[in-house]
Structure formats: structure tokens, C-alpha cells
């Protein structure tokens, strides 16, 4: 079953029109000694029913967040997705179209992306947002590349150790191949001390990167960190949580120059890590807009003066500038940007606020009841939003294994990323978690210790 349509008669007529005797003749330019000459060693074809049975069998070997109660966070969260999101994203006029190169035949996608960009500006309090990037980690790397271009500096990039470890690893991979030095500022107390930024920053510092809520779920003093960056003329890159800005201050409110985020919480299924949605917004100064990576949709008019939308400022991009482009990125995450736009529209300001508020309340309730389990305590003293670090008295991997057996994805073992935190887990609570589930986790933890 290869979805081809041409019958043997069609093929014969086509070969005759081309003027060759066989399909093989069309491959004459491939030297015979380079031909494979055997069938590919992959399994034989499956019909749709067999394929479905096979995948259902594989699915049954997974324990998803739909089966076990999920308290996992770390940049991906088990949020509720209104059915309108799937209904719209399932329109095949959206999902089987490509990049809107022909604007006249792509106004649907272009307008939706323009709406997405506007929504991201409103979510961040910043003036310009692009059409999206791949996910939260490469968004941090792209923001730092922007900062290199905007400042023209060659000093250090200062990054809080409390930024998502995988975002930092991504940044370090990019930096290793460019003239860019990344210095990690330790966060032993679960937050970046703004005084440490002041001490480390100087007039060659390219950027300061911080995340709030941070990887542990705790809050950072973003205003003070940003002030320290601004004082030396460094770019302040803020990694934020696009759901929690329903109640928290936005990056623009605390003076971020560039805001980046993992947008998964905006209507994107967990999906084992992707495809997700990279958000990037920045201030509207010309030098920032010139350096922004990826696609941008702009408003204009057609020949009859009618309002419409096009891909714009493309002279930044690889297909025109080639090696001088601001980034090598080609496509955006169009379908995920659409999902986010529909999700935010479905929620509205009050829905986003209520979602964030429920997350905060339930997370604080969860912290209270979990800390009533003997030997369990909050690892850090700083405020948190919907995720927090817990210190456990037992061996963390063994405790988590017992909790898995009891039906809970209970938390992330922080020792995997922070050896000093080997005795700790982070626990995330979304609006989907019920009191019964939280109480159940506390009881299971008590039993597991």
C-alpha cells in the first residue's frame, strides 16, 4: 500500500510519452555499482487494521498520563486541552498546507499566525513576536544568538543554573561552535541571587539568561536580575511560563528584552516531547527586529487596498541571506502555533487566569499535604508557582519506583540533573489534578517511605 494511483495501463502510456521503455530506464543516471540491488531490510507491509493492532499493542506497553496520575513537569505539563483546539487543528486545510509562500492562497494560515504573534505579544508584554521556533530549548539558544548580534559583544553569556538543564545544554551546544562563552551562575538555594549577576556582569557581557518560574518551579527576582543586566548593557533573556502568566507578571512587565518559552502548555499534547512550540518575543527596537530568527508575518494591503497578511522581513532569512542569515531556521511550528492561538482564544483572559490560579492553589495544597508526610520537606525557601522541589528521606529512585507501581508519575528525580539534589524530586500540579489525586499521592508517598 504506497498510496500510488497509476494503473499498469497508465504507466505504459506515461513511459511511451516520456519515450523510454521502462521505469528502470529513468534511473539510468544512477551508476549500477551504486544501486542497492536487494530489497530494504525492513518489515513487510501492514494493512490499516494490522497497523492499528500493532500500535495498540505498543501503546499498551506505555503508562501514559491518561492512566497514571501525572505530577511530572520540568517544562512539559499535563494541562486540559479544550476540544475546539483539536477541531480546528484537525482541519486538513490547515494541517496539509505548507509554509505560506503564495500569500493569496494561504491567507488562512497567515492570518492565524498574525493572530498568534499578537497573542504572544500580549502574553509577554513585548512588542514583537515571531511565528514560532521549535521548542523551549532552542528558543533560548536563538535568543542568545540574537543578543550576540544586537550587542556585537564577545564576552560571556551568564546563565542561571536554575534554567531548565536541557535548555542550558542546548545553548552550550550552540555556543561551543561559535565565539560565545557561557558561564553558569550557581543557584544553591534554588534561585539566582541578583547580586551574583552584578558581580559577574561587566561591559562585555552579552546576555543574562534566567527562567521564572525556574526549573524547580520556584520564582526568581526577575526585576532585579534584569536591572543588573541593563546596568551593563547586556540583553536580558527571560524564559517564562506561558500558562502561569495568567496570574504572574509578564516578561515585559519586569523588563525582559527577549522572552522565550516552551509553549507546550498552550494546547499541545505531551506527546513524549514533541512536536512542541518555541515562543520568542522581543522589544520592538529596529536592531532587535533585524536580528529576530525565523518567520514573521506582517500586515499589508493587496492591489485593491484590502487588508491582508504576508511573510515579511525575509531578508533576515536563510533562503535569501544564506550564510549571513540571522538563523538557519526555515519553517516555524505552524500547526502548534495554530493550536496555541486557538487554545488561548478558547480560554480567554479569564480562562487563562483561572487555569493558572488553580495550578497555584493546588500546587500549594499539594506541598502542604506532602510535607505532612514524615521526613518530607520543601527543599527551597523561595516562593513557587505550580511546581516545587521536595526533599525526601528515602532513596529517590526506589521511592519513585514504588509510587509508579501505585499508579503515580510522582515527580522528577532532580539528581539526574543536579547531583547535589540527589535526595530531591520536583512535583508539578496542574488544574487537572483533583484533591483526591493529591491526597492519594500523599498517602502513597507515606506508604512508600
Amino acid at each position, binding site marked *: 500500500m504506497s498510496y500510488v494511483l497509476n494503473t499498469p495501463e497508465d504507466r505504459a502510456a506515461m513511459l511511451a510519452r516520456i519515450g523510454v521503455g521502462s521505469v528502470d530506464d529513468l534511473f539510468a543516471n544512477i551508476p549500477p555499482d551504486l544501486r542497492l540491488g536487494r530489497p530494504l531490510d525492513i518489515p513487510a507491509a501492514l494493512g490499516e487494521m494490522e497497523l492499528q493492532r500493532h500500535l495498540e499493542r505498543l501503546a499498551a506497553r506505555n503508562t501514559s498520563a491518561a492512566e497514571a496520575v501525572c505530577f511530572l513537569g520540568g517544562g512539559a505539563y499535563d494541562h486540559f486541552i479544550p476540544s475546539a483546539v483539536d477541531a480546528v487543528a484537525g482541519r486538513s486545510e490547515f494541517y496539509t498546507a505548507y509554509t505560506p509562500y*503564495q500569500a493569496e492562497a494561504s491567507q488562512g*494560515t497567515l492570518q492565524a499566525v498574525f493572530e498568534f504573534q499578537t497573542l504572544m505579544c500580549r502574553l509577554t508584554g513585548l512588542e514583537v513576536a515571531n511565528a514560532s521556533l521549535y521548542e523551549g530549548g532552542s528558543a533560548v539558544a536563538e535568543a542568545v544568538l540574537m543578543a550576540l548580534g544586537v550587542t556585537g559583544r564577545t564576552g560571556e553569556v551568564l546563565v542561571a543554573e536554575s534554567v531548565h538543564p536541557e535548555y542550558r545544554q542546548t545553548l552550550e551546544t550552540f555556543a561551543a561552535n561559535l565565539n560565545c562563552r557561557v558561564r553558569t551562575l550557581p543557584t544553591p538555594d534554588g534561585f539566582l541571587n541578583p547580586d551574583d549577576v552584578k558581580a559577574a556582569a561587566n561591559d562585555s557581557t552579552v546576555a543574562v539568561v534566567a527562567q521564572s518560574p525556574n526549573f524547580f518551579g520556584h520564582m526568581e527576582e526577575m526585576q532585579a536580575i534584569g536591572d543588573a543586566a541593563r546596568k551593563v548593557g547586556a540583553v536580558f533573556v527571560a524564559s517564562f511560563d506561558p500558562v502561569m502568566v495568567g496570574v504572574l507578571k509578564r516578561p515585559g512587565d519586569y523588563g525582559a528584552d527577549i522572552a522565550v518559552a516552551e509553549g507546550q502548555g498552550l494546547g499541545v499534547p505531551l506527546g513524549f516531547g514533541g512536536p512542541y512550540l518555541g515562543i520568542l518575543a522581543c522589544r520592538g527596537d529596529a536592531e532587535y527586529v533585524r536580528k529576530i530568527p525565523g518567520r514573521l508575518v506582517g500586515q499589508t494591503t493587496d492591489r485593491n487596498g484590502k487588508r491582508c497578511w504576508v511573510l515579511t522581513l525575509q531578508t533576515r532569512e536563510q533562503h535569501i541571506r544564506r550564510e549571513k542569515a540571522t538563523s538557519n531556521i526555515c519553517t516555524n511550528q505552524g500547526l*502548534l502555533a495554530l493550536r496555541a492561538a486557538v487554545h488561548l482564544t478558547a480560554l480567554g483572559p479569564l480562562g487563562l487566569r483561572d487555569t493558572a490560579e488553580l495550578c497555584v492553589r493546588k500546587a500549594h495544597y499539594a506541598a502542604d499535604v506532602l510535607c505532612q508526610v514524615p521526613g518530607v520537606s520543601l527543599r527551597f525557601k523561595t516562593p513557587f508557582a505550580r511546581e516545587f522541589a521536595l526533599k525526601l528521606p528515602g532513596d529517590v529512585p526506589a521511592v519513585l519506583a514504588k509510587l509508579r507501581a501505585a499508579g503515580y508519575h510522582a515527580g522528577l528525580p532532580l539528581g539526574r540533573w543536579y547531583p547535589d539534589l540527589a535526595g530531591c524530586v520536583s512535583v508539578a500540579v496542574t488544574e487537572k489534578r483533583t484533591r483526591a489525586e493529591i491526597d492519594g499521592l500523599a498517602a502513597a508517598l507515606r506508604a512508600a517511605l
Partner: protein
Amino acid sequence: MNNTQSTDLVFELSRPGRRCHRLPACDVPGGDTPLSQLLPAAHLADAPPPLPEVGEIDLIRHFNNLSARNMSIDTNFYPLGSCTMKYNPKRHERLAALPGFAALHPLQHDDTAQGMLELLYEMQQFLAEVSGLPAVSLQPAAGAQGELTALFVAAAYFRDQGQAHRRKVLVPDSAHGTNPASAALAGFEAVTVKSNGKGLVDLDDLKAKIGPDTAVFMITNPNTLGLFETQIGTITEMLHAAGALVYLDGANMNAILGITRPGDFGADMQHYNVHKTFTGPHGGGGPGSGPIAVRDFLAPYLPAPVVVKDGDRYRLNFDLPKSIGRVRSFFGNVGILFRGYCYIRTLGPDGLKEVSEQAVLNANYLRALVADGYDVPHPGPCMHEFVASARSLLRERKVRAMDVAKRLLDYGYHAPTVYFPLVVPEALMMEPTETESKETLDAFADVLLKIKAEDPELLKAAPHTHVISRPDEVKAAKEPVLRWTAAGRPADEPLPAGRKATAASPVGAP
């Protein structure tokens, strides 16, 4: 029918108080506690972000009516060269939505994701087999990120070999723009290699540019003109003799599945565009998935993690001491890899080979039909795509390739890729894919030939039947409006403290 209902910007449809989503009441104690008792007020916003407020029918009507303003594979023939716009099977969508896959958290324990890991492990093996390159990383999110990842791998390999002086990456002039952009981002210097009159790599120019500082040659094969580089064996030998690596841009794998393999013709690394070759829906510009396959000696440098099998158990292996690190967070664009897996399992070895045979047959057939009215500068046979030129139309009737492209939209066809590759003037790059029928190709070619004879003024004003006529792109770039703000009022959201809107700041809607 041009349905304009609810098609204003969603912000213009907004009316205070409308909602389409309500959350349950707070079921934990302290539901009435002010938030400022849980979080210091300094962290709290005064109000939620100004999002639109609409009811559900408005939302659905808005986005559904917008969707009708798109051309798509499911509604129109979409011969966009280099993008492999083949049919996206519906079964993939239903299977990807199974909660056992869709609701897996990326950081959950390996023991609770054995089915997913098995699928990804097999996908690694399938991609290795199709490429003839044994080590695979599924991490890159798109083709461009795959290129970049492979160049990071090459850079790490050369550093490890004490050959960090290899700073140059050679790129043919017909290559995708992502190639030189990725080279620059990986810290290399991109050097252009010319094409010859046949549209193939100019071996003399290549020879002149290979030196002791050459790190990688990035070649697209079949190339962007749809031609197989017949000298590929010689080319890869030249590079290897100079101690350099050969990278294969896998954008055009749809032409060679089961016929020839990059590893067998001398490539050391390649990326796949899973969304093209193995038919992930293109989503209006993503998501893609750009895994890479490399030779054994490059495997230690791949991004972590990779999926390994210990006995009957699958696990993510992060223990790769020489790894370049990560190019993104989490495992990869699993949803697209999943669809690619479904496709490979549906087709099997014979089906995959048939894909390439029929893609090449369709392209050559369309090429023969189009050649009746347009220049096709390079001799055939072509592979899965070809590049025609409207240069004689320009010369004789002052009609440009873009005019032809726009007029095709009137006839219900998405346009080919225009003005790419850069080496062909007035280029019209067509890739029909294997999932189109002879009748579709016949009808499309008839229209192309008919357009050629139409009134030039009609063509220059095309399209005539779409929701808009040609947009003013110069205005869009000169006076950028990148977000909506309420007309006649200052921006309806406060600028960050201490900052003024600059002249270059995007301004509100007219």
C-alpha cells in the same frame, strides 16, 4: 463563495464577558485565600493578559472560515518543488492520537514507555537501513536543525582528531539556503562550488576548492534541479582523499528509497526530512522532523539520548561522553517520527521502492508534458522533480515565472516553487510526488500550456479568484505591522517600564 463571516481578526471579534471555556471550582481547601498569601504580590500581575473574549461558535466559525482561505494537499494539487507534498494518510492522525502515545510525558521513566521506546528504536533502525549509515539520532526538530546537528558532529569529530583547522564547508550554488546558513551557525566558513552546464557539481571547481582546511562538502543528491549527481562516486572519493567528510542533504530522499543509499555512494552523514519523505503533514509550515544518520566513527558524537536495547528492555542512553550535547529539549519531534514509522510499516520494502519509482515516473511524465511549452534547461531523465524556466515567456511577452505561478492559483493549483534554485532564471520547480494520478498531471499540464497563451495583462494581475489580489510586500517590509493593536488608539498594552516605542516599532492597524 467568499465567506467573510467571523473572519475579522479574532481581537476585533472580541466582546467583554464572552467565554467558551470554564474551569471546575477549586476543590482543595483555601479556594478563597487571596493569591498574595501564596505568592508575594511582587510576582503577581494586576490583571491577566488581554486575550480575546469570544464564544465557541465564533471561535469555530472564525478558524474554519480562515482554513477555507488556504490551499492544501487535501483540497488541491500542490506541486511545490523540494517540499514533497504527498498525501498525508488519515490513519496516522488517528493512531497518533491514541492516549498511550499522545499523553506520554517526555521525562517519564523508561519502564513506563517501553512501547514508545520500541517504536523509536525501530525507527532508528529503519532510517539506518534506508540510508546505509548505521548510527541515527532522532533528536533534530527539522531538516535545517538536522543539517546543523550533523555539522556540529563533524566539528566535534575534527576537534577530537586534532584537525580543528578544517574550517571550510563547501556548498554547491544550487543548494538550499539552509546549507550555508547552518555552516555559518556551526562556526564554519561556507564556500560556494559552481554547477556546470548540465546542472551538476563542476568537478574542476570542486577540485580547486578542496584543500587541507576543508571539513565537509554538503551535497544534495538528487540535487535541487532534480538531477542525480552521476559523478557522486568520484566526488566522495575526492573529499575522502582530502580527509574531509561528505554530508548528504536528504531533502530529496523521495527519489531513491530502496534504489541507492547515501552510505553506499559515499556520504558520511545525512539528514532526513521525515515530514517530506515519510509524509508528516506539513502543518502550514511545520512541525517537521530532521533525524540524522552517520557512519560508525561519528556515532560517539551524536546528540544524547539515543534509544538502546538491553535484552528485552529499551532505554534512553544519555551516557555518550563525546556527544555534542543537545540541539533541543526533550527527545525529538516524536509525533512526526511516529507518523513516519506508521508510513514505513504500511509500505514495507516493496512499497517504499515503489514510492520512488512512481515519484520519478510522475516527474518525468510531467516534465515531458511541460516541455511542450516551457524551457526545461537540463537534459532528462530527471529524478522526483524538475526545474522548468519561464525565461522565453519573459523575453517574448514580459511575463514572469511568478505571473504563471499566480495564474495557476486561479485554476485551483498550488504554484510550483518559483525562483529556486537560483542557478536557473525564471525557475518553476515542480515535484508532483507519487500520490498523484496521470489525470491530475494531464490536467495540470494542460493549464500550464493554456496559461502560456493567455493575455499578459491578465497574468500580471493574477490571481483573480482568491480572497485577495497580490499583496504589497514592499509596504509590509518598509512599514512593518507585526501585531494587531486597536485602531486609532495607542497600543492597548503598556510598554515595559522605562521604554518608549521607537520609530521602527510596529504600529497599529490602519
